[in-house]
């Protein structure tokens, strides 16, 4: 008997007629339908620049304030309470098994993107030591990716998530290019992958570096906005 990873309830997967006729291995659910419903998918009505869920398809206020055309981001879910609770347990409590919850939706979302090379946002050495994993690459199943970015050490006196919007916007460039980056990036369309888009500061810093590495275009995908 398998249990829901989030609420520990016993799962009763039900086979649909479509699945029966397809005659393929059944998808194994890892969360119960009720927990899955808590996560809110972003529909087509979103900001074209940052991917925020809204009622129109015009550029949102935050993106206007940035005033650049540097980045096009898509997000899979809104950053609601369920998503915050999920991130809390996965990232900050370090429950690596929870990566399975988001594997399938992220794989679907990646399949819809046009890109040549996937570049996940890296974590710094200290986080890697204490957390033991990179929360972004944890979600990837078999997708090839390139670790083209490096985190320059000790820029983080406090975690990004503990700062206010103003403090976040003032963050210095934390990334540098990996030694082999130029080879990987030159003339390619790059997709950056991150967990949460909050102000867009991190992704813009990363995009700047990727362009310096000679990429043709940079878009990004985040799990939540």
């Amino acid at each position: 008997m398998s249990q829901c990873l989030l609420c520990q309830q016993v799962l009763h997967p039900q086979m649909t007629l479509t699945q029966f006729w397809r005659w393929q291995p059944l998808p194994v659910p890892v969360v119960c339908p009720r927990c899955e419903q808590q996560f809110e998918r972003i529909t087509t009505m979103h900001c074209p620049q940052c991917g925020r869920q809204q009622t129109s398809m015009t550029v949102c206020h935050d993106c206007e304030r940035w005033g650049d055309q540097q980045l096009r981001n898509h997000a899979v879910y809104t950053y609601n309470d369920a998503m915050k609770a999920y991130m809390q347990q996965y990232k900050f409590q370090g429950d690596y098994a929870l990566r399975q919850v988001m594997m399938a939706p992220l794989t679907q979302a990646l399949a819809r993107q046009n890109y040549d090379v996937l570049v996940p946002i890296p974590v710094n050495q200290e986080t890697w030591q204490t957390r033991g994993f990179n929360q972004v690459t944890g979600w990837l199943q078999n997708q090839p990716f390139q670790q083209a970015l490096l985190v320059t050490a000790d820029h983080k006196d406090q975690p990004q998530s503990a700062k206010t919007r103003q403090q976040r916007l003032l963050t210095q460039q934390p990334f540098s290019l990996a030694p082999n980056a130029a080879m990987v990036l030159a003339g390619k369309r790059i997709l950056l992958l991150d967990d949460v888009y909050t102000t867009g500061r991190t992704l813009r810093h990363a995009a700047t570096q990727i362009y310096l590495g000679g990429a043709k275009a940079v878009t990004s995908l985040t799990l939540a906005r």
Partner: protein
Amino acid sequence: MNDEQSLFGRQLPLTAGPANSSAQPAIVSVGQRKQCQRCHQWLLPTDQLPNQAWYCRQCLQLGRLTSQDKLYTIAEPNRFAQVTGPILTWPGKLSPMQGTAATAILDLVRQQRDQLLWAVTGAGKTEIVYPALAWALAQNWRVAWVSPRVDVCLELAPRLQQAFGHVPQTLLHGNQTAPYRYCQLTLCTTHQLLRFHAAFDWIIVDEVDAFPLATSPLLQTAIATAQKPTGSHLYLTATPGEQLQRQVRQKRLAVTYLPLRYHGVLLPQIAVRLIWRWRESLAKGKLAPKLVRQLQGYRRRGQRFLLFVPHVVDLKPVAQALQQAGIVGGLTVHAADDDRAAKVQAMRDQTVSFLITTTILERGVTFPDIAVVVLGGDDPVFSTAALVQIAGRVGRHHDFPTGEVTVYCHSQSRRVRLAQGMIARLNRQGKRLGGQRQ
């Protein structure tokens, strides 16, 4: 408090411990498998991190332990400040029957036997333990009073504070913000015992058959490891499960019975009333006329009541149906309710006249002069033990020793019958001791 004291009889992951502490890896390999040294559960082969460390998912809520961590501990020295003044400051008096049970428990504690106190709901279990607890504290024993339910701990804390006024006490639970203090008497949830190791000479487990302890090997191990090898424990319950009853039959657990409430009135028996397909009519926003009439009667007489429903999703439709029938002045309460404590307090303060709730209020709460109604008593969530506990909410107060328990079912069910049987059996025993009918 210094660092040393916070480690007495505890197991904590630290980066460096005091000089006299001993450390052991948090995750150890036993053959092919890995075991967490805090919760003593086995890790799954998939619980490995990309940096090659292993981590335990079972006790993650207390902070993640990985194979890179070390658990520091100092053996329990029982180094407490001298208690100034009398240990037991409880002004009350035990009834003769309670007194007999209290003496029996004290004798078994002296022999350091593991034991069970099987006393009916509303027998005054807590007070019966006081003499034995006072004796244990006088022996300079370190004692823990634990319960799987945080509500029980919260209700108990002020009572113990009053009964043992000069004994330093600490209350631990998941939402506790006050820092840990080393005290002779610790009141905590069973989860918190995972942080202790061979600390307690005596552990009192209140409501031992309550969720989640009854079905959780994790918490059962926690009690075993928090107890000293020379220590013993006392289980308190009104409805011991099959496993405990077997241990009693096998003489592995000494037992003290108390089949009569402290005021000497027998337990209220469950009355069953059938309502055909109540769930379907509830889906249409209607409740059975029988039930509505009964509740209207309660409201007219000013009788306060608890209405139990099987699931959280049933709360809202039932509340709406009652409102339509003109029954207002109540609240709904469930486990994930943020205002749960405040709502229960409002019921105690008599500012609301009824609560619609789930099994979360089946035990550990006392309201004087209350009637109990269960809707859908044949639903599997109402186990026999749960029904007996729910019936036990009624008639607990000395001045209001009687009351009604009505269970509405779609059809007769085995669990309800068994609950009636259990109450009848306890009442037969109680009558022999001189209990009076309602």
